[in-house]
Every structure is written in structure tokens, then in C-alpha cells.
């Protein structure tokens, strides 16, 4: 296979920007090779520790939240030692990346595109919105976001730059937008595809509502991952055809799946 055909890379990426507030961080990385081949919904595996240390050993997976001009952007929450170490990195330092990985969203022109995100699951939606806008300049986009509170409602600014988009929010504490759960924001009639990323119960609810209302729904799943690239088959999940075809693998068959392949 000639080098020109490569679509996945392991690279040392310079940090362009690294910001944290309330344990939610954004990281912008100079990664032209990855940015060139990435599509929305894909993720990268990030080495979070010192290169000479084997602890933590495994890379951590993060969705590509932004992708433009040779850079990719991540948004992540500090939840354990890998993300803690990453949050200490500063502009100018290098981070080793593997990506882009997995299968992204499947995109077709629609009457409307519904981007539904909850918590850190909002992360992949800015890249998706930007891609949709570019591919289908005239399709309206509705973004429906949910979070526990104002601080955890991430990426709001990222959608503002995009034309012909509406953004609605729901928070558990009512601090921003609707006081309640994000599935409630879905319209009675859904005129297009739903793309959903967030906590498992939220995705289940959104998938069920979409099916009820006759709309296609794509969901983004998470599992423990060792490699992120199809080598270890550690990331197994049961799809609806488990009995005939065995497990699906989130890093290779996903992380984006059609909801009906997972839940009926």
C-alpha cells in the first residue's frame, strides 16, 4: 500500500491551544494528516501520559469536535487520570495521536437535520454541523442540546458561526433554556434524520421517539477501548442481529451506528 493512500496516522501533534474551566477542556491540535482524512463522527486515540511512562498505558478515545485548516479540536471532561494528565498539557507541547478512527455519520440531504447532544456527547456535533452545512448548503439544521447545568453546556459558540441553524437547550437545573430533558425538545413531527450522542438512556429515548415518529436516527456509542483500531476486539457490543452475526465493534463498525441496528 503506497504512502499516498494512507488514511490513518500515528503522529506527534503540536498543541495550538489548551484551555480548561470547571474540569471541561478544549484542545486544539495541529494535525494536518488527520484533519485531511477525518469525517464527522470519527474519533482519535490520544496518548495522555509521558512517553517514557507506561502508566497510564492505554490511549484515551475522544471525538473530533472541530476540524479545519489542518487542525482538529477536542472537547473533553476531566474524569480520571488520563484526562487529568492531558489537561496539564500546554500550547507548544506535543501529544501523540492515532486517527482518524471509526465510521462517521452517514450523511444525505434532508428536509432538516436534527443534531441531539447530551453532556460530553455534544462534542462531535460542531464538526457534524459544519460538515452538513458544507455538503448541503440549503438544508436547515436544528441543534438540541442538554446538560446538567450551564457550565456543562459545551460548544455553544461553535454553532453560532454556522448559517441556517437553530439551537435549543435543556438543562437539568433550568439554568439555561428548557428545564428538563433534551428528548422533550424533539418536535412532534420529525422531518429528516436525527443524529444523537450522549448518555445511554438519553440515546435510547431519542432513538425510541425517532422511530415512533418515523425518522432515521444515528447514535454514537462508547465502550472501553484498548486500541481503537480494530486490533483487539475489546470494544464489543450486542446489536440486534447478535444471534446471527455476533458482536459489533464500536471502534470499527462505529462509533456511529444506525439506532435500529442497536435497539429495536
Amino acid at each position: 500500500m503506497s504512502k499516498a493512500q494512507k488514511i490513518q496516522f500515528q503522529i506527534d501533534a503540536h498543541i495550538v491551544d489548551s484551555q480548561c474551566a470547571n474540569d471541561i477542556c478544549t484542545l486544539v491540535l495541529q494535525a494536518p494528516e488527520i484533519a485531511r482524512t477525518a469525517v464527522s463522527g470519527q474519533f482519535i486515540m490520544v496518548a495522555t501520559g509521558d512517553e517514557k511512562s507506561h502508566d497510564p498505558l492505554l490511549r484515551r478515545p475522544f471525538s473530533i469536535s472541530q476540524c479545519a485548516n489542518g487542525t482538529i479540536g477536542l472537547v473533553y471532561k476531566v474524569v480520571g487520570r488520563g484526562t487529568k494528565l492531558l489537561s496539564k498539557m500546554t500550547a507548544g507541547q506535543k501529544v501523540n495521536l492515532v486517527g482518524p478512527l471509526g465510521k462517521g455519520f452517514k450523511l444525505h440531504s434532508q428536509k432538516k437535520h436534527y443534531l441531539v447532544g447530551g453532556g460530553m456527547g455534544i462534542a462531535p456535533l460542531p464538526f457534524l454541523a459544519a460538515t452538513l452545512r458544507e455538503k448541503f448548503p440549503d438544508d436547515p439544521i436544528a441543534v438540541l442540546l442538554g446538560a446538567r447545568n450551564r457550565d456543562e453546556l459545551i460548544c455553544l459558540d461553535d454553532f453560532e458561526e454556522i448559517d441556517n441553524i437553530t439551537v435549543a437547550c435543556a438543562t437539568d437545573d433550568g439554568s439555561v433554556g428548557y428545564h428538563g430533558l433534551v428528548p422533550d425538545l424533539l418536535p412532534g413531527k420529525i422531518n429528516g434524520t436525527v443524529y444523537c450522542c450522549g448518555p445511554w438512556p438519553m440515546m435510547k429515548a431519542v432513538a425510541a421517539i425517532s422511530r415512533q415518529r418515523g425518522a432515521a436516527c444515528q447514535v454514537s456509542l462508547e465502550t472501553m477501548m484498548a486500541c481503537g483500531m480494530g486490533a483487539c476486539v475489546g470494544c464489543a457490543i450486542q446489536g440486534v442481529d447478535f444471534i446471527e452475526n455476533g458482536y459489533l465493534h464500536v471502534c470499527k463498525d462505529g462509533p456511529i451506528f444506525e439506532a435500529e441496528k442497536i435497539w429495536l
Partner: protein
Amino acid sequence: MALDSPELSVSIGNWQLQNPIMTASGTFGYGEEFADFVDLDSLGGMVLKGISLFPKNGNPPPRVVETSCGMLNAIGLENVGIDKFINEKLPRVSRYKSAIVVNILGDSIDEYRELAQRLNDTDIDAIEVNISCPNVKKGGVAFGTDHKMAYEVTRVVRQSCSKPVIMKLTPNVTDIAAIAQAVEEGGADAVSLINTLLGMAIDVKTRRPRLANTVGGLSGPAIKPVALRMVWQVARKVSIPVIGIGGITTVEDVVEFLLAGASAVQVGTANLVNPQTSGQLVEELADYLKSNNMASVHELIGAMEV
């Protein structure tokens, strides 16, 4: 001349490898997954995912968990089965210059026999017999922990095929050298070791094991000292080649295993962490020999001074 391109090739019986760097079963997929990261013509060998007679779904998730300098896996030997493997997976990697080794596992002696016979008609380079995987309830453990059973599997596989036969040993035994001697007697061309150490992790929040299978196999840098000790112990007791496995990440790790008596090595968990590892190690081993004025990798094999 020698110093410009040191001799890297090693032999396992009559079988010549272009260099001693192989990949370990279950950590390199069916090979192709790594095409963007490794020059698949450059390796000593690629040991592919363990294959059984019939397809296996493997264990329910979660299947992997990180531990200190290591990881536990309880994949449960998920694989496509020998038919689909021969028809679909093998053709896609046969075109590469790296030797192809197929790792097999059976629930019974008969299954091992049939797998070996089936593979004998393919153009693979060698068979690695997994008698060591701790994850399946039947077969796996018993064959590798009992030296009579280990001998018997070896003999049967040996008689069923003309390819080089590598017996892969489990570390979860009192005396691994005794098992190695048994498989040597059974006709093995080489032994590879170690497979994973049986381990466990518990989620204190849920009070449940972190792996759905409760226990799993520990791999990675954490186990390197145990692997190296076992390679050394076995290499002194058998006269067939030893292939060293366990936590190999850097070229110094490779050199340690060679010094301890390994004729070749397999890189496992490191592939999952840094997919370029195996290819880089081939280059780094050549550089290491050059910068230490060695003409051949054979100057390292078994060269530890006690």
C-alpha cells in the same frame, strides 16, 4: 559491509525469518488493520488472531480494562472460524512478505488435529498452537498446564501438518520448563512464551468484576520481568528455539529477550498502544546492532553472562 546492514535473519528449524520481530496473536488483528501504520513486508512474522474450528462470539463486554502498566483482556477468543479465515482473511495478508503464522485453539485434541490439517493446505508459514489461553472454560487451560496433555496436543498437530509447529505456553504454571520439555519431546519446532497471566480487577463502585468474565489475561510492560525469567529458564532446558513474548515495547526490551535466549520475539500489547511499534522495532534493532558494532543478531541470542 556487515556493519552497514547487520544480519537480522533468524531460523526456527528449517524456517527462515527475515528478522526476529513478530507480532503476537490477538494484538495484530488479521494483519491488514495495521497497513497504514506498519510496512507489512518488513516484519519477521505476523501471528494472526487465534482461530478455532467454528466461529466464536467471545465473551460479553466489558472485555478489556487497564491496570498498572498493563491491561486485562477477556476477549474469549472471538474469531471468524477456520473457513472464513481461509477464504476471506488469509488471501488479504498472503501478499505481504512478512511470514504468516496462524494461531489455533481447540476444545479437544480432535479440533487441534483438524485445524492443523486444514492449514496444512494453505500457504501460511507456520502454525502456533495456543494451549494457554485462560479465557475459555473448556480445553484452553488444561492442555497448557498439564505436561502430558501438552505433549499429546503437540504430537497430534505435528503429525497432522508439515509446517513448522510453535507451541505457545502459559505462564500460569509451577514449572514452565517442564511443559516446554514435554512439547519438545512431542515434536514442536519451537516454543513461544508467555501468554497472559491470569488476573482480575474489581470496580469498587459497582462491586462487580471489571470484566464480564470475572478473570482475564494480564499483558503489557507489567509482566515483562516474569516473561523474561521464563524465557531464560526454558531456553536453558530445551534445544528448540524459543520465541519471547511479554511486555515488549522498546528495542532494549527486544535485546533483553534475545540475551535471555530467545531466537525471536513477539510484540503484543504494544501494538494496541502504538500501532507503529512492530515496524519501528525492526529498524531500531538494525540500528542497535550497527551502533554496537555487531554484524549479526546472533551475537545477542543467549549471550547473557551470568
